[in-house]
């Protein structure tokens, strides 16, 4: 079954762009939350990840900070 994927990002950070490209390349659907524009999403991200760096991924509740390809693959089962 498809996993629910959220990406917390800012439009300007290179790793955010790479993470999203990686998901697209692997045909993974995701919800992008722009924490620069959406303060609620920003608060949610900090609360979930206990830190303030972007990107943060929420894959069915599993929180991954940064573009950690191996961890993301494992979490997605790809």
């Amino acid at each position, binding site marked *: 079954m498809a996993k629910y994927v959220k990406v917390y990002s800012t439009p300007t950070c*290179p790793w955010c762009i*790479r993470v999203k490209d990686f998901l697209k390349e692997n045909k993974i659907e995701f919800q992008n939350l722009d924490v620069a524009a959406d303060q609620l999403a920003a608060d949610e991200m900090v609360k979930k990840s206990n830190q303030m760096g972007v990107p943060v991924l929420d894959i069915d509740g599993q929180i991954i900070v940064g573009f950690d390809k191996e961890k993301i693959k494992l979490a997605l089962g790809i």
Partner: protein
Amino acid sequence: MTMQIYDLIIVGAGPAGITASVYAARQKLNFLVISLDIGGQAAWSGDIENYTGYQFITGPELAKKFQEHMSKYDIVLKENENVIRLKKSGEIILIETNKADYRARSVIIASGKKSKELGVRGEVEFKNRGLTYCATCDGPLFAGKEVAVIGGGNSALDAAMQLVKIAGHIYIINNTDRLGGDKVARQKVEEADNVTIYNNSQVLAILGDKFVNAIIIKDKGKEKQLTVGGVFVEIGLIPNSAFAEGLQMNQNKEIKVTVDNRTNIPGIFAAGDVTDVPEKQIIIAAGEGSKAALSAFRYLALKKES
């Protein structure tokens, strides 16, 4: 098990490393690229208006173009690998990373530069918990907050300019008499309503609980505590050259190279911002990368003949 010996290993995949890899691929060398990331500092740049062929392109876009160019060739890239040691033993160069060991007949070091760290109490502990080295990335998370920018050069001004629009108040902690950097940018920052500049000041410690909540500075000899929710460290860059054993470097730890990118050790070449080549520009790094690859190719050809 015998370990494969590559013709060439390129360390780094910024403009210099990627360009070197394209040249190496076209020379049909048996090589690989080891890098922590792709695009290097170029990927973190804002707007680029001086890379020939592109009147305007952003850093991430240019990095992507580089990567696309690289992917036209069958290039083996070991990503997310950090070189810990590199040394020549006999005729072979040994490379140790956080994941594996490699051997090669020649090497191009194109590992670029990274943000300099403050080296004060709390810096490691609060990294990504309010302390960041990338205002472009993380700046928006500090909307309405009081923040400190550490540094007084162009990158500090850049960070401050971005934060003027986002943060509540900005303290600039500069350890010289006055801010340096570009005149236009400096004026803008100095004139902003929500900026306080501390010249001749140093950061002594970063304080916090779960996240940063204050910094201690020494302002003209006196200790002072500032309440801040964010700290942006912008005190310049240092070359990623610490792993290379036996290489001659200048006082800034940049690897010394000849005009054809040789170092003092035969078979080890270097290119881009990690070297002592004057001017750190994307286009220069790219050009240096191509030169280094051609030099390495020539070196290997001569070795084969002898």
